[in-house]
């Protein structure tokens, strides 16, 4: 098993992230950019996998929690920092402050998760899908209406604190927490809730509580990822956390195989690289014999959402256990 020894893996991943963080200046900025986005997407997909895969619920609002975390973290480091940090604070202070901003983003997102999850998780899965979808909409409307946070234009000028160390360490920590949690006695309740809610309740598992705990933890990490994203792109707006962003994360979980953390990590990396590959492909055109005009592949460049939708339908029809699930029993869409 790829993730059989989570503690060793966590140590190794942290070491790699420290090393990459230290020599980031010497790497090609393009690769740093792609690697950062892969790390953020792994955090998002693995945390969503805890909700959608392991616990068998279906959240469509992960980008909403990301927005909450992103805005909170940005507020902490932009508006609160000048009041508490002296102008010439040492670098260690700034780092600690960034950590605090990320954690604050995660906590507020987790609280939002509790607020949304508590009423809706008592109900059936498709209601949760709609409520979380609606939550994403409401979040966008709220941030659009808060003028101090930039309204519809969003916040810009967020300090660029995010580097490879933070991104990869967060991703590693998310994977560690999710795998150890699911393999713990308490976390088995999540899997039982997924497999058969009625049977799980009959043997004394508080299924509603399991669902809410999974939801809040997932929302927490989505919030942290949002904070990282804000301090990476230096500007955030409500449109960047819309339904399509949520769907991107859902597709990563489904391609990887619901409940299969290793597969989801792989899928998150692959699907982040995919648009880069598509962009190269879009530059080409195929000569066709019946026409002087070669068939341009330009449309591929903008067709990512179309491709994602076909991936969703095709995978559900042909391979519902995900691309990277080889005969593993347990948490799949079919069971």
């Amino acid at each position, binding site marked *: 098993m790829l993730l059989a020894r989570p503690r060793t893996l966590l140590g190794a991943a942290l070491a790699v992230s420290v090393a990459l963080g230290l020599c980031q200046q010497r790497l090609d900025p393009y690769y740093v950019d792609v690697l950062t986005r892969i790390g953020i997407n792994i955090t998002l997909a693995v945390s969503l996998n805890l909700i959608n895969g392991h616990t*068998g619920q*279906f959240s*469509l609002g992960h980008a909403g929690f990301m927005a909450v975390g992103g805005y909170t973290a940005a507020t902490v480091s932009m508006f609160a920092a000048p009041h508490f940090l002296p102008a010439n604070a040492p670098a260690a202070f700034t780092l600690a402050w960034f950590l605090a901003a990320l954690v604050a983003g995660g906590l507020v997102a987790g609280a939002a998760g509790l607020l*949304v999850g508590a*009423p*809706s998780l*008592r*109900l059936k*899965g*498709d*209601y949760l*899908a*709609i*409520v979380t*979808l*609606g*939550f994403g*909409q*409401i979040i966008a*409307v*709220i941030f*659009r*209406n808060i003028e101090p946070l930039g309204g519809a234009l969003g916040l810009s000028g967020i300090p660029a604190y995010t580097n490879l160390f933070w991104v990869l360490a967060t991703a590693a920590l998310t994977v560690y927490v999710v795998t150890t949690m699911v393999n713990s006695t308490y976390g088995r309740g999540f899997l039982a809730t997924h497999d058969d809610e*009625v049977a799980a309740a009959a043997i004394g598992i508080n299924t509603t509580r399991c669902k809410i705990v999974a939801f809040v933890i997932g929302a927490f990490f989505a919030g942290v990822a949002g904070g990282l994203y804000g301090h990476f792109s230096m500007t955030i707006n409500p449109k960047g956390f819309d*339904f399509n962003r949520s*769907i991107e994360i*859902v597709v990563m979980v*489904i391609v990887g195989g*619901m409940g299969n953390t290793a597969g989801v990590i792989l899928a998150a990396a692959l699907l982040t690289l995919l648009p880069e590959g598509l962009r190269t492909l879009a530059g080409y055109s195929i000569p066709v014999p019946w026409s002087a005009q070669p068939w341009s592949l330009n*449309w591929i460049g903008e*067709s990512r*959402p*179309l491709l*994602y*939708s*076909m*991936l*969703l*339908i095709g995978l*559900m*029809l042909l391979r*519902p256990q995900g691309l990277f699930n080889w005969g593993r029993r347990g948490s799949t*869409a*079919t*069971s």
Partner: protein
Amino acid sequence: MTEFFQQLINGLSVGSMYALIALGYTLVYGVLRFINFAHSDVFMVGAFAGMYLGRGLGQASVGGGLLVMLGAMALCAVLGMLIERFAYRPLRNRSKLSVLITAIGMSLFLENAGQLVFGPNPQPFPATFPSRNFDLGQVVISSKDLVVFGVAVVLLAGLQLLVLKTRIGTAMRATAFNPQAASLMGININTVISFTFGLGSALAAAGGILWAYKFPKIDPLMGIAPGLTAFVAAVLGGIGNIPGAALGGLLIGIIETFVKGSPWSTWSEAIAFVLLIIILMFRPAGLLGETQPEKV
């Protein structure tokens, strides 16, 4: 006071369109127990079908308008049946989650394919029905609102008759009640489900045409917001319940219109979902629905 009546008329007209869309959700939920996410995009396709048919029509007239509407309804009924046949039927015995994901995928597919086929920019919807304003003292009633409300009422009444009085309606209710027992009684479940999808999609198309007639700018993403609101309407009324969907649609249409006319108008998009969360907290079965205990 006049403003109140004006808003009420507006709300009723928007609400009756929500009711038409909500019926599609409710019908499909009734027989298959899942949320057909692609429904709101069938609504969009209906509006575009109406646009292309209406361009060929030329002069606006009542008969022509009805013709365009019937044409779009027929096209969308076929589309709905095709979606059911090729995307949902192969998954019928799989977990609900698979069907839900496929439905979301289908919805995204229609939206993005629509952007490729119809173009992403808003397009003007041709005048199919003639329109004029009736001045009743201080309140102005547009013939648009009358047409929207009238067509919606006729379709709703027709649907209620169909479900309660005809053979296929009885078969639909039997299937909704217990699919296995219904098929043992000689009902062809596949035909009934296919018919339900066709019926729901036709209603969505009618809703789409009316929507485009009242707000004559259409684009491939136009279905998302009304679709979600209509879904909330279906839940508010009690999902699976036909009069409930109509009631929920009207209520939400009126509430939304009043919020849009108030100082909190920028929050109107969030209203439906706030309502949804409140309903789910206090009365998850909806206003007219019955709570069903879960059987093991």
